[in-house]
């Protein structure tokens, strides 16, 4: 991966002891998404359909679904409402589910985290600061479920 890409992409692989169909539904079913991200959801899981997740009553992630291929692949755009640095739809999240039976490997990629600034400045530091701005939005202190310590 080129250095510039490393700065603008977050990737993770996760092994989950659940069938792909089950894991997939956590990206398309609002009630299930509420168990891992956000408090209010508008999800229309068809290409071009809305993707909107209110994280905590203040920070809202928004974009639209690009690809929905159950139970193998879901792609949606992503950004933050009221964010200049990372507006709704300005980056892309790609989720690929592989595996067999009751095991799933989740391949997660969040890319184009700051393409505009990457071109303008061509420096990792700027991508980095942009991402920090995003984190500041998403990681806003308060009654944010994901900030609570795990039981």
């Amino acid at each position, binding site marked *: 991966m080129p250095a510039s890409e490393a700065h603008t992409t977050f990737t993770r692989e996760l092994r989950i002891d659940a069938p792909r169909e089950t894991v997939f539904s956590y990206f398309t079913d609002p009630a299930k998404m509420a168990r891992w991200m956000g408090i209010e959801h508008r999800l229309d899981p068809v290409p071009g359909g809305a993707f909107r997740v209110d994280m905590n009553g203040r920070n809202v992630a928004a974009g639209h679904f690009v690809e929905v291929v159950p139970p193998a692949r879901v792609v949606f755009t992503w950004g933050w409402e009221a964010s200049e640095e990372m507006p709704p739809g300005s980056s892309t999240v790609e989720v690929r589910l592989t595996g067999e039976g009751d095991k799933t490997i*989740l391949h997660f990629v969040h890319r184009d985290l700051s393409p505009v600034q990457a071109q303008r400045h061509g420096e990792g530091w700027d991508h980095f600061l942009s991402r*920090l701005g995003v984190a500041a939005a998403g990681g806003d202190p308060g009654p944010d479920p*994901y900030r609570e310590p795990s039981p």
Partner: protein
Amino acid sequence: MEPVLRAISDARRREIIRLVRRRELSAGEIAARFDVSRPAISQHITILREAGLLTERRDGNRRLYRARPEALAGVRSFVEEFWIDHLDRLKEAAEQEATEQEETDARQ
């Protein structure tokens, strides 16, 4: 970590960090790049310094500032925590559902 996030949540403060990431500048030199008052810039510098994002060095009666990238490096992992934490929660929820489903199937 929260003071750091608060510090970088302001676009002007992020711009200040960019200005001094490779060179030292005095408060006056930093302020000259902005069309806001010098006291306002001083306050931004104080917030950044208290968050550990800027270092201050005295040179005679001048105070020079420079970014502390290592402080930001600590935040970098925090950035990724958004997805790491959320995906861990997803895993937990999906596995719990799968376990419950297995138990239901076993009873039938």
